[in-house]
């Protein structure tokens, strides 16, 4: 029984941190630019494929440093793509109704799908976890693969890093100012458009990083973007749009929902998840934790 409970909690944390890794960049960009970016899932997916390409030079045995380096390469590549997307798309949509922005980012997602299908094809590709992380730990009857522990730790580290930057540094304070009132921030001498650019770069780099870190967590296919973007949307919405802390808490909450439904309703995967999101949205459309929104 204790083993079951630990297994459920552990599975919840794996789901939660994998989803948080994707959702962190999404919620950051939404908090500052107020752009709900459908294409985030697409750039996450491309990040995964980039890491796959880098890692395929190492053969079957991948050292941990190479795995991390590949994630970094994916992150830098997507951050660079972020500059292009910001210039070509986001800046030109500043004065447009939010509905059209949503549609434009969906179009970008389709472009990402097309790029992946053209370059990497339709087949499922997979990467094995780094050779240092192929072990399994036993804890009170629960089985914990070390790679899954790595995913959980990565999520927590990314959260702590973001939280420190947003709440403990001057750059973070500027971000909070712009999130509240960009016009006033411009008046007091903050270069708002440069902050916007760096936010997009960071958001996209986080998507690439998530793609690289999670590349061995699931197989790669052009469906990956759609699966993760819905999960990440759920986390961002339930956590209160734009809040990094909210997204972190919401990812754990929804991870528990997902793990419980996988254990007790194994024939209906996803039903409880989407029902929970719909319920939360209907009861509190602004999200569960919006009052404590940090950015």
């Amino acid at each position, binding site marked *: 029984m204790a083993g079951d409970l630990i297994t459920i909690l552990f599975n919840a944390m794996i789901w939660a941190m994998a989803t948080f890794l994707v959702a962190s960049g999404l919620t950051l960009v939404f908090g500052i630019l107020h752009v709900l970016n459908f294409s985030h899932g697409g750039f996450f997916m491309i990040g995964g494929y980039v890491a796959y390409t880098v890692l395929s030079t190492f053969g079957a045995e991948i050292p941990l440093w190479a795995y991390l380096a590949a994630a970094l390469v994916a992150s830098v590549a997507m951050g660079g793509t972020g500059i292009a997307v910001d210039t070509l798309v986001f800046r030109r*949509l500043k004065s447009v109704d939010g*509905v*059209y922005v*949503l549609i434009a980012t969906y179009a970008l997602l389709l472009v990402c799908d*097309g790029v992946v299908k053209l370059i990497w094809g339709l087949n499922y590709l997979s990467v094995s976890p780094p050779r240092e992380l192929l072990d399994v730990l036993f804890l009170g009857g629960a089985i914990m693969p070390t790679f899954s522990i790595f995913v959980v730790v990565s999520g927590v580290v990314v959260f702590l890093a973001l939280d420190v930057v947003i709440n403990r540094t001057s750059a973070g304070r500027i971000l909070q100012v712009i999130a509240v009132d960009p016009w006033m921030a411009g008046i007091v001498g903050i270069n708002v458009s440069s902050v916007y650019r760096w936010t997009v770069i960071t958001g996209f780099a986080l998507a690439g990083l998530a793609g690289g870190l999670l590349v061995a967590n699931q197989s790669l296919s052009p469906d990956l973007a759609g699966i993760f973007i819905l999960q990440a949307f*759920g986390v961002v919405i339930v956590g209160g749009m734009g809040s990094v802390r909210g997204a972190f808490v919401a990812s754990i909450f929804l991870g528990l929902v997902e793990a419980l439904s996988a254990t007790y309703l194994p024939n209906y995967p996803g039903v409880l998840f989407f029902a929970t999101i719909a319920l939360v949205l209907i009861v509190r*459309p602004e999200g569960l934790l919006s009052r404590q929104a940090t950015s």
Partner: protein
Amino acid sequence: MSIARVRPAVFLPLLALLVAGALIVPHVANRGVVFLGGVVAINVVFGIAFNLAFAKAGILSFGNAMFFAVGAYCAGYLVTQQNHLPFVVILLAAAGCGGLLALVTGLLALRRASGVYFAVITLAVGALVHVLIMKLDFLGRNDGLIGVNRPIIDFGFFDLDLARGDAYYYFIVASCALLVTLMWVLWSNRFGRSLQALKSDPMRASFLGIDIDRKRLIALVLSGSITALAGAIYAPWAQIVTPELAHWSFSTMPLLFTLLGGSAFFLGPAVGAILFGLLEYATRSLVGISDLLVGGLLLAVVLSVPGGVLGLLATLLARFRASSSPQREERA
């Protein structure tokens, strides 16, 4: 951009032209193209029903696939399991199911959220419907419903066998033309104008005595039930109903048609659906290119021609008229 009015003198000839074009297809093209033609006709209804709520009432739904799928599944289930029912009753049942789903969604979400938030709620509800459809035994789970035969309509004095030849294609063209006409009436009459008023200035509209929440709810229910009807007409045409119809990526199709053609125009989604059909046909064998093309096109439209193809034509026409009119020459 202001919403363009469509006068009967303009609309009826255009509709006749579209119907005539659709009727020629079986005589000049092969069966594959005829099938695509039927799908495009259904997509025209799918798109205009979406735009009725979007352009007129300002409701962005990312869940229209669920209405379409509910209609298709309702028709598919009744045709395969309860085939003694007349087809017209089946169609009405499908429209009722779609309307009911829209009513529930609207009652729960429309008052609390608008714009992007409402879009995301419909996305979540649509995902829930998709998962449920994939898991329900009587709806065939992942495989969907197969063998949805084209029905025979009993008129009492004679039977209309829609399974024979291209009969069902003509049935699609006729029923879609009927639905488009119905939506044109809704678009142009007092109800449509009151929707437009509440979209452009909700506060003033409510001062004028328009019950905003009620009107928006009615608009969503109408859009949902007409979309479900389109789905119900689609089921016997494809003869198979699969869960992909309820997938959220399918919800973005009417959006695509609308923006491509021009959301300010009643026939904008129709133009978009036809253009998209041609585009899909031209790129059908190229893996990856079609996504790239559709995505790039949609992006280009949103970024540079937000009025869509018809908006662009209208602008060019206005410019042409201005440059060729004598008044302009006098001023110059």
